[in-house]
């Protein structure tokens, strides 16, 4: 695919043909709904990113420079809330999930298209409520620990309601996906012929449906505490502040798998296509998604080793935590084995996928430091934790999303992007990311606490390095988005199957027609049948 062909529009605009506000706001087409989510969540990624840059700017100085400590606290709260609730949780599941699930399983839409657009509206309503709550600056951190969140003057109650709505949208979307995957698979598409992205979305949806109600309840209790002074969490009234933390992490731990599993699914799709090899250990990867989803429900206490929770509970949670590492390891090993004797082309989707694996390994290998009790006591609530979860969430999920965006962009919009610009952006992102966040591991080991607006001078050099890295990261990200954005209008036409993939979404036009397939395909084999069989296997 040559870079930047003349801007002659591809002939058939498929599902994108219809124009106008209502054709989007009231659409029932899963592809359009997916794009609505994509636009909304990426917008908050950019806003949250601006807050991150402001935080990094301030941290170049040890004292109260640039803006006040109070403003710093508000900014890190907003950075967290936007990135977690408005970007990373909904981004891959709601945006790519919506766009791809029906296409990949050979269906014309999701099981409940009306519920689907309704979920998006609730999501928007939640966002509006959340933004309204910002009229009184929130300074609780995205974790909202009581009693601070029950007493601060910020509009926590309004925000609680907003998060409740966003959560509801997540539950409905998850439900919709589960039913879709069960009921609407094309003829011949048995469970073990499903693309691995579908497996990961299936596991993700289960977590969303089971865990999200808990965060809804948590925020309702918090609102009751603030409005009526009920005393669920206030020890003066017989409540317990740790109860809040248990509730909060019972949701917020499983939800990290809502963030990472879909990205793992994306990578599992891209690797075989660009290595021209079958995925190694298909069942291992599929089952490990379910195993992670299951064990993920049992380890929330590892956020609370030094919270004052009983030591015995801490020991049990530490033990269980280590066993999330095993299925995760299986995936990484299987991905690497997939590359063996492949014929690998390093196009942008592949480059981002390999970067995902590279960064995710670092994020993963720093997990045991935090899972082990003795070292956790030292590293908890320091920059080590900040570095660890940015390696997994940004290095993992966000880079995985970037991989997916480059891979499915031609399918979504029927156009190609400039490969050269994509590579430049990748280079900046890769180096910027590692400079920004590796410095934080060292800061953490040296004892720099997180959420600190000011700090002792000895930490300054590494903070400056990290801030400098953040500029490269930002530059790369902007360039990447610019490249894609520009290609929406100027990119050359894309073929129905530009990468030589075998999953069903490539067996229809780019962009696909409104009802996806002229004729529903019949599936006769799994989607990773690359390479030459030496002898017949199962």
């Amino acid at each position, binding site marked *: 695919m040559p870079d930047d062909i003349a801007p002659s529009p591809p002939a058939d605009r498929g599902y994108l043909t219809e124009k106008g506000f209502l054709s989007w706001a009231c659409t029932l087409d899963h592809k359009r709904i997916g794009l609505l989510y994509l636009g909304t969540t990426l917008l908050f990624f950019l806003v949250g990113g601006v807050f991150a840059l402001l935080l990094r700017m301030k941290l170049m100085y040890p004292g109260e420079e640039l803006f006040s*400590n*109070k403003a710093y606290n508000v900014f890190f709260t907003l950075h967290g809330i936007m990135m977690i609730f408005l970007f990373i949780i909904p981004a891959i599941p709601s945006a790519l999930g919506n766009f791809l699930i029906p296409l990949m399983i050979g269906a014309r839409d999701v099981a409940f298209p009306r519920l689907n657009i309704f979920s998006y509206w609730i999501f928007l309503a939640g966002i509006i409520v959340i933004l309204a709550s910002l009229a009184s600056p929130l300074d609780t951190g995205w974790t909202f620990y009581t009693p601070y969140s029950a007493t601060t003057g910020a509009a926590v109650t309004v925000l609680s309601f907003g998060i409740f709505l966003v959560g509801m949208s997540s539950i409905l979307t998850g439900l919709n996906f589960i039913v879709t995957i069960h009921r609407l698979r094309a003829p011949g598409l048995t469970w073990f012929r499903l693309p691995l992205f579908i497996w990961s979305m299936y596991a993700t949806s289960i977590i969303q449906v089971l865990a999200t109600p808990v965060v809804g309840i948590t925020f309702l209790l918090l609102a009751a505490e603030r409005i009526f002074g009920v005393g669920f969490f206030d020890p003066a009234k017989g409540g317990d502040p740790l109860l809040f933390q248990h509730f909060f992490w019972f949701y917020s731990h499983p939800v990290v798998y809502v963030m990472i599993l879909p990205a793992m699914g994306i990578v599992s799709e891209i690797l075989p296509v660009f290595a021209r090899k*079958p995925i190694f250990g298909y069942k291992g990867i599929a089952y490990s998604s379910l195993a992670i989803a299951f064990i993920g429900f049992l380890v929330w206490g590892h956020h609370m080793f030094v919270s004052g929770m009983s030591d015995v509970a801490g020991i049990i949670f530490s033990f269980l935590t280590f066993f999330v590492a*095993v299925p995760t390891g299986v995936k990484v090993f299987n991905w*690497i084995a997939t590359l063996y004797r492949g014929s690998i082309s390093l196009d942008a989707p592949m480059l981002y996928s390999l970067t995902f694996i590279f960064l995710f390994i670092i994020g993963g290998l720093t997990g045991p*430091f935090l899972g082990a009790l003795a070292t956790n006591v030292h590293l908890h609530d320091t920059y080590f934790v900040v570095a660890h979860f940015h390696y997994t969430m940004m290095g993992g999920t966000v880079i995985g999303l970037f991989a997916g965006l480059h891979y499915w962009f031609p399918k979504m919009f029927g156009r190609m992007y400039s490969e050269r610009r994509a590579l430049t952006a990748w280079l900046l992102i890769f180096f910027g990311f590692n400079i920004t966040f590796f410095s934080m591991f060292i800061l953490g080991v040296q004892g720099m606490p997180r959420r600190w607006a000011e700090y002792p001078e000895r930490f300054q050099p590494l903070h400056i390095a990290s801030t400098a890295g953040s500029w490269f990261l930002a530059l790369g990200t902007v360039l990447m988005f610019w490249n894609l954005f520009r290609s929406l209008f100027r990119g050359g036409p894309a073929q129905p199957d530009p990468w030589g993939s075998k999953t069903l979404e490539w067996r229809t036009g780019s962009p696909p027609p409104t009802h996806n397939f002229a004729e529903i395909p019949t599936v006769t084999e799994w989607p990773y049948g690359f390479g030459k069989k030496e002898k017949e296997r199962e």
Partner: protein
Amino acid sequence: MPGFAATNNTVSGVAAQVDGVFLFITLVGLFFFVLTQGFLIYFALRYRRKKREEPAETPYITGSHWLETLWVVIPSLVVLAIFIYGYLVYRTIRTPPADAVEIQVTARQWLYQFTYPDGRTAVNEVRVEVGRPVKFLMKSADVIHGLYLPDFRVKMDILPGSYTYLWVQPEQVGKYEIYCTEYCGTGHSVMRAVMIVMNHEDYGRWVKQEEKPETLSLTKKGEKLTENSGCLACHSLDGTARVGPTLKGLFGKKVALADGKSVVADETYIRESILEPNAKLVQGFPPVMPTFQGVLKDEDITAIIAYIKTVK
């Protein structure tokens, strides 16, 4: 200074043990890092195909039972080992010796108050004797805080309504920083204290001197209180601004307030500044000074005011 897991850590036995676990996980991690990243990069380069080149023929390999079993079993054993090692050292971290000196800690936005067994109190500074185990018994007067001694590799959250504890046995004379690690509002990052580890003789001398403060003059007593109450973490005596304005030449000065008014710093103003710091905010400074209501007694404040008058 806390650095990269130095196993020759001599600050305390526990710190050295924690660094041992750190080193163990680092070595295991490095092994897997080299293994995985090595193969990842090697395969990506070795089997690379040029742009726009037709894909070469690749083998149809869909998995290998023995390999997959291998990378379930070996990592399981490795993480089990890490868990056990971490757990064993954790037991030590959580088990204070029976003869530990018990020091009460009350945390509030945004200071730590320490109460010694004999009833003496100090703010944001605690003195202990080298070689003697100390147990901090902690509770919070408001929101959750965390007490973190980075050099000693230990921390613990401090809760309202129930007690938590933490213990250390310092083996080296020196000054060690104490940080707050649980986010507690505007002053979270300036909520710092020091632990001063003294040798036997110095500690004895200090205790004796502390025992008869009534023999001190009012300004001398004020000077001691200003030191022991943590004021100097935020206020300098030499004219430089820190977290708060300098105390040098404060008395009788005209102070510009955040609301645009101004006030002459007399006894009443200084008293109010200590008991209700946010009633009149100094221009250009954050509202992070903790209230000393219930921490300093009335006569203590009188002594501090007398001392501030002498800082010129």
